[in-house]
């Protein structure tokens, strides 16, 4: 039904920023016992300036995949390439975490500046850049506030500003809006789209929300659990900018949503590790795949 691009085939493309080829990663459980496979033969690629959503139920290795792309952990087998080489954490790759991870004793300015400290910039350049990204995320008024005084949405803006300050060409986002209330989340999505349109980094955006994936992404990589792998990639051919019209009312949107939701449900019901495993849960009309 949907076109599933073959990532390996396209990895010769000069425009491709991030390539994963048959990546496996497993972890030893803290309590001992057999290693748990988090990712098995996961392959995907992200082109320059493209927005890819990694969609999947919890426990399908989405976060592991991002950490591999950032170079925070190494794959057991397979290759991870960013700009044609194994990635190393640094200014070229930005990371926005679900839990914000702001330094509590540093004010907003210092939190944002934290990602600029080791780039060899002058103090004036750092100050200028910090000021600019803080303005971009709309927090100029709160530049001298401590994180504890900010709301969840504002904290995530600070984290986003920190990730954007070094002007990364790849931006990794790990369920960045999952702990933000629904109203704020919608506005943050628009905000992110605006910023992305201006800066155009390649984005890997992890989410378990089908709607969020469709609204934001150029392409959705659907991931399945036990062990985690990329099942299919689905292009989102909805016109941009999507905040200027009601994309949710488009027939194409509804179609995508149906397909992705039913696949997600299948994964959960057929995953032995899931609490819903083997449950006979009624599917809404027309939701069968």
């Amino acid at each position, binding site marked *: 039904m949907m076109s599933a691009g073959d990532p390996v085939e396209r990895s010769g493309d000069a425009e491709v920023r991030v390539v994963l080829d048959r990546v496996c990663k497993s972890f030893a459980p803290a309590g001992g016992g057999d290693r748990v496979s988090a990712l098995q033969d996961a392959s995907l690629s992200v082109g320059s300036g493209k927005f890819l959503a990694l969609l999947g139920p919890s426990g399908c290795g989405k976060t592991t995949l991002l950490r591999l792309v*950032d170079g*925070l952990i190494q794959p057991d087998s397979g290759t991870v390439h960013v700009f044609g080489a194994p990635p*190393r*954490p*640094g*200014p070229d*790759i930005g*990371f926005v*975490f679900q*839990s914000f*991870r702001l*330094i*509590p*004793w*540093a004010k907003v300015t210092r939190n944002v500046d*934290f*990602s600029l*400290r*080791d780039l060899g910039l002058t103090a004036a350049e750092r100050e200028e850049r910090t000021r600019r990204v803080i303005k971009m995320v709309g927090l100029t008024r709160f530049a001298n506030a*401590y*994180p*504890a*005084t900010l709301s969840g949405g504002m904290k995530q803006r600070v984290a986003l500003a*920190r990730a954007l300050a*070094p002007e990364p060409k790849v931006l990794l986002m790990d369920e960045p809006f999952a702990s933000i209330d629904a109203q704020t989340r919608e506005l943050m999505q628009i905000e992110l789209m605006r910023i992305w349109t201006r800066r155009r980094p390649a984005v890997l955006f992890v989410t378990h929300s089908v709607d969020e994936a469709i609204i934001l992404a150029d392409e959705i990589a659907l991931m399945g659990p036990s062990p985690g792998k990329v099942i299919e990639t689905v292009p989102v051919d909805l016109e941009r900018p999507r905040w200027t019209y009601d994309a949710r009312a488009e027939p194409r949107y509804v179609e995508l949503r149906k397909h992705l939701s039913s696949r997600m449900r299948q994964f959960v019901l057929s995953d032995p590790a899931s609490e819903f495993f083997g449950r006979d849960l009624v599917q809404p009309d027309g939701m069968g795949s």
Partner: protein
Amino acid sequence: MALFKRELAMLRDVLQSCGSSAVRTAFALRNLCKPPDSLMIAFYRIGFFALLMALWQVAATRMGTNVLPSPLATWRAAQTLVGEGQLIVAIGDSLTVYLSGFAIAIIVGVPLGVVMGGFRVLGKTLEVYVFALAATPRVAFIPLIIVLLGLGVEAKTFIVFLGALMPILINAYAGVLAADEELLEMARSVGTPRGRIFTSIVLPGAVPFVIVGLRIGATIGLINTVVAELYTAVRGLGGLLAIYGNTFRMAEYFVVVLTLATVGVIVTESLRYIEARVSRWRDV
């Protein structure tokens, strides 16, 4: 109600001295209970002071002033002791021992704890011995210290140092180990070099633990000051305590006890003030 925050702070101290895992819980406890109004608290405190004085007076008349001097008699004794100069000299002696022992404990304990936390192998190797030493009653070492250092200021200072060192060291160590894993990963993902991660994430995160260690160390250091003055050459406030206690001069004896309490309060309150200053970001 007025004392509630203080009780809570004491409870927190107890929890924190139990171990690092309790620290977060205890901080959460503090945040649950903001003081209502500082003026009201001051008022309640004065009221409670008056109540204490009244109880003291009643107890003194019931038990007889030979056993328990009245507040007024104690006040007169204080005037005499200050006027004749013994008290000032004793405070000077005690503070010299106390503050130098405490200062050396900080200078040794904080860096040692930080290094133990920074190099896990070293920390794991040494921690057993540190915990064993911390669990041994330090009074047990006094005869040995006397043999080695004599009865003078050096021996006294060393006894204070030994008492204050352990909580300071253990808390600094726990503070470094308690570094926020999520912040560490964030710093690594930004490309921060290891040394900078240590100085900008790990060390600032350990500061609240270090200050708790200093406060516990200050209390134990004061106890050990008195113990040292009782066991070695009888001098200072501990010395006066022994002299007046043994000769049943209870009014003078009470003056010394109250002086010690005052010194303790001043030191721990100063540390509490520093803690509040350093962790301003927490409460805003």
